[in-house]
């Protein structure tokens, strides 16, 4: 019943977009009412359906399963173990004949015991009766699975402990070194490589990265999707990349009528320098720079509309070092089609804009991983034992020179029947063996 409840809860969680998966910049409180309508959106938020799998009630369901697993398993395991290790050997003939597979042949108990031992059965005798079984281990399988599942559940819950499940995301441009917040690590991106398939889908991306710990390089490797770097319990994943306008090559031009290209400046569109020399005598002073220029309609003040480099605008003075005078002014919108506004002997013209690639690396430290996969190996072992080892029980009673065989399969009845055909040499279609 609990299993089905969890199934239903999981279905609900898969049909409603989860907070961790939706692709929108808005916070949940704004996003959900818009996505599902005011009524449903707020209802989902209130019920915790927007983060089903980390909600209190989902955790409660899982906890209930854990508790019932523990109780049921031990409740049943003890009597089962007793029944398996101390089986009732002496049985009446009607009981034996009632078993799934039964057959009668002439012979004595000693022969039966030898025959069964030869086929790998463990044989116990009591007066005129005999009990044999094999694949006893199979019966413990379910409990091994359950123990594994308990480990898995605890590993899952352990991630809620402080410091057990930590992630950091860093964006690093080519050649940059970035300190990872709240750790002793810094990462250098020597070179980010990106290749595409002819159809435009990404084929390969990798970061040639160095890991620095307290300023010293401790590892250097190529981090790729499916090939993370591992260091000291941390793993460093290649997750994504981003491209933004990087450097603008600006031609410094002598104003008409000369129209002469004097030299080229390289302007970092994220963080330009304060001063760019133009030859020995002149300088460009950057007075203000906006990467996404906008004028706030309320205050009339210039500012940035976003974090992106969408509309870079530079306001500068041309300065003569010899005279110490400002000799000209420029206002340049790098992406605009219109010519720049300027006065004085120089102006700037945009030559090219070089893109800059950022690699996205994710650091993850998850202490639950070894426990999780240990738990899963235990589960898998338990499953192998449960489903591929079969427990077959046989009772034999000797009555006046006739052996009454009866056998029961805990799993794979069909296999037991075949076993009996071979064991007792019964042709097809005879006896209660089919």
């Amino acid at each position, binding site marked *: 019943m609990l299993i089905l409840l969890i199934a239903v809860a*999981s279905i609900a969680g898969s049909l409603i977009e989860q907070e961790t*998966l939706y692709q929108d910049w808005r916070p949940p409180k704004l996003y959900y009412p818009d996505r599902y309508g005011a009524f449903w959106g707020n209802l989902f938020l209130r019920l915790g359906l927007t983060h089903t799998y980390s909600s209190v009630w989902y955790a409660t369901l899982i906890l209930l399963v854990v508790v019932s697993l523990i109780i049921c398993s031990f409740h049943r395991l003890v009597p089962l173990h007793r029944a398996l290790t101390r089986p009732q050997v002496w049985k009446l003939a009607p009981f034996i004949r009632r078993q799934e597979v039964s057959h009668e042949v002439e012979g004595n108990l000693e022969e039966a015991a030898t025959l069964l031992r030869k086929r790998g059965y463990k044989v116990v005798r009591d007066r005129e009766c005999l009990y044999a079984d094999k694949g006893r281990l199979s019966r413990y399988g379910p409990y091994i699975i359950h123990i594994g599942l308990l480990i898995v559940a605890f590993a899952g819950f352990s991630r809620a402990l402080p410091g057990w499940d930590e992630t950091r995301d860093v964006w690093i441009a080519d050649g940059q070194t970035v300190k990872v917040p709240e750790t002793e690590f810094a990462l250098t991106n020597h070179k980010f490589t990106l290749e595409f398939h002819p159809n435009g889908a990404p084929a*390969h991306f990798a970061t040639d990265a160095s890991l620095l710990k307290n300023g010293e390089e401790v590892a250097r490797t190529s981090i790729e*999707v499916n090939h*993370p770097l591992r260091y000291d319990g941390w793993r460093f994943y290649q997750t994504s990349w981003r491209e933004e306008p990087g450097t603008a090559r600006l031609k410094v031009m002598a104003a008409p009528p000369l129209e002469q290209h004097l030299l080229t400046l390289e302007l970092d569109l994220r963080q330009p320098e304060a001063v760019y020399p133009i030859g020995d005598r002149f300088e460009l002073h950057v007075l203000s720079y906006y990467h996404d220029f906008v004028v706030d309609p309320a205050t009339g003040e210039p500012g940035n509309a976003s974090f992106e480099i969408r509309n870079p605008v530079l306001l500068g003075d041309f300065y003569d070092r010899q005279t110490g005078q400002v000799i000209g002014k420029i206002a340049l919108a790098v992406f605009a089609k219109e010519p720049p506004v300027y006065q004085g002997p120089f102006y700037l013209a945009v030559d090219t804009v070089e893109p800059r690639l950022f690699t996205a690396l994710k650091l993850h430290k998850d202490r639950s991983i070894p426990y999780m996969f240990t738990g899963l190996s235990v589960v898998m072992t338990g499953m192998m034992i449960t489903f591929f080892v079969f427990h077959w029980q046989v009772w034999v009673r000797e009555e006046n020179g006739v052996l009454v065989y009866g056998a029961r399969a805990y799993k794979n009845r069909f296999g037991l029947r075949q076993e009996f055909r071979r064991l007792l040499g019964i042709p097809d279609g005879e006896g209660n063996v089919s």
Partner: protein
Amino acid sequence: MIGHENLLPASSWLLLLAFAGYFAATLLYVSGYIGTRLSHGVRFTRNVMWADGAIWLGVAAHAAAILARWQGAGHWPTSNMYEFVGFLAFSSMLAFGVLNRIYRLPGLGALVAPVGVFLLAYSYVFPPKVQPLVPALKSYWLPLHVSMAALGEGFFAVAFGAALLYLLRVRGLELSAQRAEGAGPAGGAAGARSVHLRREDAWERVWGPRAMEALFYLILVMVGFTLLALTLRYSGFQWVFDTATYHLPPLIGPFGDAVGSKGSFLGLPMPLLEAPYWMRAKHVNSLLYSLAVGGLLYGLIRRFFTRGPIGDYLSLRVHGNPEVMDEVSYRAVAIGYPVFTLGGLIFAMLWANEAWGRYWFWDPKETWAFIAWLTYTAYLHLRISHGWEGRKSAWLAVLGFGVILFTLIGVNLLIVGLHSYAGGD
């Protein structure tokens, strides 16, 4: 030696051979199973043997096709819907082959071989072009995770077939008993009254046949969808919207396209309705047509071929020992379950841990795999410790396979998530 450039065409031909094998096996199993009985064991007696051969021929050709595509494409061919659905057909037939060798259950092939035919036909709905791998799929886990999961699902498909066979057989026994009991309607009523019915039997008697008809309708909807998609793919009909291209007259257009903006079709304005923005309009549109075509197929078969409920018609033609069918279904689940757990969940977690930096994301695909796993877990628990054998158990095996199909196909088509690169359009 086949040149490298010939590997992909060779793979297509081998796949066609596999399809022919499965198709021939279907015909041979059906004729062998029903024909032998109708002719009192005189005719068609060797058909089932030939059918077994045809299945193995199909499986061998299919395996060769997969290997050829692997070499030809340069990556293990389970990276998109076309390849995956084909692989699922292969694993189902392989699982059937294995269980058929153990149990030699006549009749199972007549139900499971068509599953292979259907899946393979369905795979042709998706574009068969080799697509280069995105970096996330470049891993040795691609063959391990996907093939192992598909193999488990193949066993679940066989469990479904055997469960269906069991349900039909039991219904058939019941019907024959009813007919033998009462010659007329009065006798029938008296007979029914005289039989002491347990509550669940009564429930089963009322709802069982209806659920069976609903199941056949759903199967025909899927068949209808496949037929429709295959016909239209090559028919060249299309209605182009900014966000999607429809190959069927758009009853429901994408959000933002006005009613009637694409002219009219048979006098009706196209699209007839505008979808709300959250709906995957194209898929819902196809779904509507599939429901209609499925209904049409169902109606035609019921009216002209079976002349009554399809389930009843089939159930009277099914023979064999129902206990063995029940056992085969259980055994198939018992094999499929650990294989699916390993391939579908554990390998998936190992891979996710390697590629995405976390072993579990609650991505819809993962969640549904987990739901499918829970369904079969419930099946095993109810069977082992609550004594659910027979019908209840069989219905659960049917439900479980429904969840599997939804996980594999429905999730890709209807829900967006991390696995969406596996979705075909």
